[in-house]
């Protein structure tokens, strides 16, 4: 019995040790390590995906992280995340930040902190061009595809309580399900839908439809209660906007020459 009590005590003690170790600043930790470990999407063109030729993860968000790593003077390591694993991974310290189409949500503030918005998206529907679906109201009694653990999944249930939400691991999988008639619409943020539509063989078969279901401002997820690190991310983003580095990056992935053209019509929150 004594052994048993001893082991419980040891476990509790080690938990406290872990908690106190987590208090050290993230910036110091990253500099000591010499690498910034960024969680990015690996199945979400053009935000983050595996390139065909280099076989590496590339995209808008990985390059945003590369800029942050350069500012810290450290190397960048990309870790793939999905919508359902990204927040636990940040909480447990497997990654230093999330740059993976993560919507800044008040409910998520309980567990992690967010940077300023670096990409303002809005949730829409992707449907077959001849489906006759033009708004969320048309989805009553129908099946809608989305991704597990995403805000889109929660929003569509609120916007149309009479539809059935079928959740997949990734949005491209939801799209494949729509192609096979398993769902009538895929719902998520418009830029992701546009990326999916334009990657298809016949983009004209699909349209992005409906009103804005919800605003989806993307922020970089950072560990809770580390204001120095969050300041660094915020100020770096603003510097990138002011220097034109952000716009150049945006143009590379969302400009007119790309498959994912979205005009740059907004301005980043810039503090004086």
């Amino acid at each position, binding site marked *: 019995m004594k052994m048993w009590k001893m082991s419980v005590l040891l476990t509790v003690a080690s938990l406290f040790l872990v908690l106190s170790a987590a208090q050290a600043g993230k910036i110091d930790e990253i500099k000591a390590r010499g690498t910034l470990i960024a969680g990015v999407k690996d199945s979400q063109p053009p935000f983050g995906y*595996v390139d065909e030729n*280099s*076989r*590496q993860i590339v995209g808008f968000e990985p390059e945003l992280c590369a800029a942050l790593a350069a500012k810290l003077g450290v190397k960048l390591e990309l870790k793939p995340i*999905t919508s359902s*694993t990204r927040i636990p991974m940040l909480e447990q310290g497997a990654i230093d930040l999330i740059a993976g189409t993560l919507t800044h949500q008040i409910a998520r503030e309980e567990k992690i902190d967010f940077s300023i918005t670096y990409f303002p998206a809005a949730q829409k529907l992707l449907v077959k061009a001849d489906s006759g679906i033009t708004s969320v109201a048309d989805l009553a009694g129908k099946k809608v595809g989305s991704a597990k653990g995403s805000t889109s999944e929660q929003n569509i249930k609120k916007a149309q309580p009479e539809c059935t939400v079928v959740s997949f*691991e*990734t949005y*491209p999988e939801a799209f494949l399900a729509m192609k096979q008639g398993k769902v009538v619409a895929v719902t998520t943020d418009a830029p992701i839908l546009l990326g999916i539509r334009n990657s298809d*063989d016949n983009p004209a078969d699909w349209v992005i439809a409906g009103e804005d279901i919800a605003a989806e401002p993307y922020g970089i997820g950072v560990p809770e209660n580390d204001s120095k690190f969050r300041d660094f991310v915020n100020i770096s983003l603003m510097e990138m906007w002011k220097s034109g580095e952000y716009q150049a990056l945006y143009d590379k992935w969302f400009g007119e020459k790309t498959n994912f053209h979205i005009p740059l019509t907004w301005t980043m929150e810039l503090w004086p």
Partner: protein
Amino acid sequence: MDTFMTWLSGLFSNWGIVWKNFDYLLVGAYPQGPLGGLAMSIVMAVIGIFGAFWIGLAVGLMRLSSRRWLAWPALVYIEIIRGTPLLMVIFWFYFFAPILLGHAVPETDSAIAAFIVFTSAYVAEIVRAGVLSLPKGQTEAARGSGLSHTQAMIYVILPQALRNMIPSFVNQFVSLTKDTSLAMIINVNELTLSARHIYTRTMKAPMEIFLTIALLYFVICWVLTAFSRKLERGMSRYQSRETL
């Protein structure tokens, strides 16, 4: 019939995509980047099998021991693991290990640890069944000829029992090899996740890609069973006459 054939050939018309990305399916981003694809599946399976064999052997022998302080922990371990889905064990290791160890554990390592811990419990039961299946006379004769309990186990019982266990081992290891695909849930870039990377980028050819990886899994498992048949023949010389 003709329309059916056209439909069928249209269904599988994207083999070019599989061919162009075949190296990614085999080795991932290696050597420019981390290992992935089939190579990663094999690495996880091989380390998993090796670890599970030795730990499972130890736990199985503990379970057989007449000393309670050895047998009971083994029993509790086996029963807990056998009553838990592998997917959950993988999640446990991935999300609990950092809390206990105080630092993040790479997802490949936690997946392999989960595979070893999970498969060991089954190997332990195979070991127990294998040892118990030998006629009692084997132990009695070994002890009677002056060997200690441990010596009897190592030189007489185990060589015979292990041979009997081979088919069950292979069964377990083949299923472990296939179960490595579950590691994709924590983003280990093994064969199944590599396949997803390709079809989420191209949005095409899901059937061709999945048919290809099914074939790759089959080849690996078939090689494993073929190897075990050879091993079984090689070890038959240890067989006692009584059980032949």
